[in-house]
C-alpha cells in the first residue's frame, strides 16, 4: 500500500477513534476520507486509486477494530446500483445516493426480472408513461431480494413499445416508499422467502431519477449486470472454502457414514473445488494487473455446478439423517448463506445457484459467443417492435 494511502487510513483512525465513534458516523467519515471504495472518484468515497488497493485499506481498518458497512447486507447497492450510478448518474444523483448507499443507511434493491421476462430480460413489460415531469409506472417485478427493506430500487421499464425490445427500455431509480409500490414475499423451495414480488401501480417517478437517456436502459443495464457477475465470482476463497469445506468436515467427523462410492465422488468434488479455487486465484491475479479475463463467467458456472453436486452428495452421505429437514417455517433472512443451516437446506438452496444472476445456460451462450466467437442462434425477435412479439 502506498504511504499516502496508509497516511489517510491513519488520519481517519486518529480523527475518528473506532472505539468511541458511532458506527454510522465512522462510516460517513470513512466515505468522506475517500477510503470507502478507493477506485471511485475523489468526493464520491474514493481517491481514483487502483481497485486492488481496497483490500489493503479494508484489512488495515479491520485490524484497527473499525466497523465495516456489512457489505453482504447491501450487496445489490454496492455491486449493482453504485457502479451504474457512477457511470450514468447525474452529478446530483451521485452526490445524493452514493454516500448513504455505501454506509448502508439506505438499502437498494433491483427491479429487473418479471414473470414474463427472465433470461429474456429485454422482453420486460412493465410500462413507464411520461406525465409532465414524472413517469407513471405500472407492472410486476419478481425475484427481488431486499425489496422489503429497501429505500430505493434500480428499475427497468418499457418507455416505447413501438420499437424493438432492446431499444424501448429506460432505466430509473424508484422510491420504494411510493404508495404505488406493494411488496409481497416470494416463498421458495427452501421454505423461506429471501425474495419478493413487487407490484407497481401508478408509481410516480420524477424524470430527475432517470439514469441515462430515454430508450438507453438496456445499455445502462449491461453495466449493472456485468458488475453482478464480477461480484458473484470475485471473492477470495481459501482451500476448502465454501461447500466442499462443509462436506469435508462432515466426512472427517463421521467415519461411520463413509462408503467407497461416496468416497470417489467426494475426492472428485474436492478436486473440482480446488481447480475452481485456483482458477479464481488466477483471475484475481489478472485483475490485480488490470487484465480482466473472461474467467468471471466461468467462475459462476463452475461454482453453481460444484455447489449442487457437493450439497447433493452431503444429503446422501448423511443417510437416514438426510431424510430430515431443519425447518419449513417461512422466514425472511437478511443475509443468505449458501453453506448455512443444515444439509437439506444447502441442497435446496444450491438449486438457485445455476438460475440467479444469469442461468448456467445463458452463461454458456455468453462464453460461446463472446469468448469463443461462435455465432448467435438465428432469432426472430430482435428486430420486431416489442408490441408485435408473440407472448
Amino acid at each position, binding site marked *: 500500500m502506498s504511504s499516502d494511502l496508509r497516511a489517510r487510513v491513519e488520519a481517519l483512525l486518529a480523527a475518528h477513534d473506532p472505539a468511541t465513534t458511532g458506527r454510522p458516523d465512522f462510516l460517513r467519515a470513512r466515505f468522506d476520507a475517500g477510503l470507502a471504495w478507493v477506485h471511485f472518484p475523489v468526493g464520491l468515497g474514493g481517491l481514483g486509486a487502483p481497485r486492488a488497493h481496497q483490500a489493503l485499506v479494508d484489512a488495515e481498518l479491520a485490524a484497527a477494530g473499525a466497523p465495516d458497512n456489512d457489505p453482504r447486507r447491501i450487496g445489490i447497492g454496492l455491486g449493482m446500483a453504485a457502479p451504474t450510478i457512477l457511470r450514468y448518474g447525474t452529478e446530483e444523483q451521485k452526490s445524493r445516493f452514493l454516500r448513504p448507499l455505501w454506509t448502508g443507511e439506505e438499502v437498494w434493491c433491483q427491479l429487473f426480472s418479471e414473470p414474463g421476462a427472465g433470461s429474456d430480460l429485454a422482453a420486460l413489460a412493465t410500462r413507464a408513461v411520461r406525465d409532465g415531469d414524472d413517469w407513471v409506472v405500472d407492472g410486476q417485478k419478481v425475484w427481488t431480494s431486499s425489496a422489503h427493506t429497501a429505500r430505493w430500487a434500480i428499475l427497468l421499464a418499457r418507455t416505447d413499445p413501438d420499437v424493438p425490445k432492446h431499444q424501448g427500455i429506460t432505466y430509473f431509480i424508484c422510491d420504494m416508499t411510493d404508495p404505488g409500490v406493494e411488496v409481497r414475499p416470494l416463498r421458495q423451495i427452501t421454505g423461506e422467502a429471501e425474495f419478493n414480488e413487487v407490484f407497481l401501480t401508478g408509481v410516480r417517478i420524477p424524470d430527475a431519477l432517470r439514469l441515462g437517456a430515454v430508450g438507453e436502459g438496456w445499455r445502462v443495464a449491461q453495466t449493472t449486470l456485468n458488475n453482478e457477475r464480477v461480484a458473484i465470482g470475485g471473492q477470495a476463497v481459501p482451500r476448502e472454502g465454501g461447500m466442499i469445506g462443509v462436506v469435508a468436515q462432515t466426512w472427517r467427523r463421521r467415519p461411520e457414514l463413509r462408503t467407497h462410492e461416496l468416497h470417489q465422488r467426494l475426492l472428485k468434488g474436492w478436486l473440482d473445488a480446488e481447480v475452481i479455487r485456483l*482458477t479464481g486465484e488466477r483471475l484475481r491475479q489478472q485483475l490485480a494487473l488490470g487484465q480482466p479475463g473472461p474467467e468471471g463467467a466461468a467462475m459462476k458456472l463452475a461454482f453453481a455446478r460444484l455447489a449442487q453436486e457437493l450439497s447433493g452428495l452431503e444429503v446422501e452421505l448423511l443417510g437416514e439423517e438426510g431424510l430430515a429437514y431443519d425447518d419449513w417455517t417461512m422466514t425472511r433472512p437478511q443475509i443468505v448463506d449458501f453453506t448455512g443451516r443444515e444439509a437439506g437446506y444447502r441442497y435446496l438452496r444450491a438449486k438457485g445457484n445455476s438460475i440467479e444472476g444469469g442461468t448456467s445456460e445463458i452463461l454458456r451462450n455468453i462464453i460461446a459467443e463472446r469468448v469463443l466467437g461462435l455465432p448467435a442462434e438465428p432469432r426472430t425477435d430482435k428486430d420486431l417492435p416489442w408490441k408485435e412479439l408473440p407472448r
Partner: protein
Amino acid sequence: MNAPVLLYSEIEEELRSSVRDLLTDHCPPNAVLARCEGPGPYDLGLWRRLVTELGAAGLQVPEEFGGAGASLRETAVVLEELGRSAAPVPFLGSAVVATAALLACGAGEPLATLAEDGTVAVLTVPFSTPPGSGFPDGVRVDVDGTLSGRVTSVADALPAALLVVPAVGADGPGLYLVEADAPGADVVRRTSLDLTRRLADVTLHGAPGRRLAGPDTAAAVLQRALLTGAGLLASEQLGIAEWCLATTVAHLKERRQFGRVLGSFQALKHRLADLWLDTVGARAAARYAADALAGDSPDTAVAVAVAQAHCGALAVRAAEECIQLHGGIGMTWEHPAHLYLKRAKADQLALGTPGFHRSALAALVDLPGPVG
C-alpha cells in the same frame, strides 16, 4: 508459504512465442502425420533446433553445467507448446524426467552432455509409473556390478543414448547410468498407441553401469523425477486440450449444415463452453503445479495430484470432443485430430491415471476412505 504465481511472466511469454514460431515453421501437422509411418518416428532435426536455437534440452540444467538455469515454470511453458503441436521430440523423457533424476543425483557430467548437444537420456521405468509407487525391482545389480533385467514401455527410449536405470543390488536400490549402445543393452521398439511419443522395451544382460545414487538417495531421486514428470505433464495436457478446443471452434465456425454454421447450434455451443471452462481450470492447475515444483513448495504433492487428475482427464475429453464435433473427417487418418487423441489417451495413463491421482488426494488432504 509464498502466494503462488499463476500467471505467465514476460520471459515465459517470450519463450512461448519462440517455441511456437519454431514449431509453426518446422512441425506442421501434416509433417508430424507423415513421419508416423516413416522409419524414424522422432523428429531429431526438430529436436536439434530446439536444443541449439532455444536451449530447450538444458532449460532446467544449472548454468555451471552449461544449461540455462531456468525454472520448471519455463520448462512447463515449453511443454504446453509441444503438446499443442503433438511434437515428436523426446523433451518430456529427456529434458524433464531424466534431467530431474540427474539433477537430484547431482550428476553434473551427463547433465552437461544433455544440455550441450541434446543427447537424449531417459529414466527407464514404464511410462505408466506414478509417483509414490514402490522402487522397481525389474533390474538387478550382479556381483560384478553389471545390470540385468527388463523394463517395458519406456517412453522416449528409442532416441536415447543414456539410460538412467533404477536397479536393486545386494545393498539395496540404486540409480545407474547405462549407455544405450553398451554391450548387453538392448532397446526394442514397441508398437505404441501414441504415434508421436513411442515406447520401447529395454533389456539388459550384464550391461555395464555407473552408479549415480545409492540406497540412501535412490528412492527419493526416483520420486522427485516422477513427481516432476507428472506435474509438468499437466502442461503438455493443457496444450493438447487448447489445440483441440481451438481447432474444433474453428471448424464449427466454418462448417455449414442445415443451412447454418454448425457453431450457431446451442447444443454444440454449450459443449464447447463447458470444455473451455475446464480448460481454464486446467491452466490454473497446471500453472500451480509448475510453480510449486519450481519453488519446492510443501504443497507440491497436492498441486501435482490436482493438476494430473484434472488435466489428464481434460485432454482426453478435449480430443474426444474434437473428433466427435468434426464428424466424419475427424475419424479419418488424414486429419491430425487422431494424433492428439492418441497422445492424450497415452498421457492419461502416463505417470499415474487421473483416478490414481484423485485417490492419492485422500491421504494428502485427509479424506480417508471407509474402514475395511
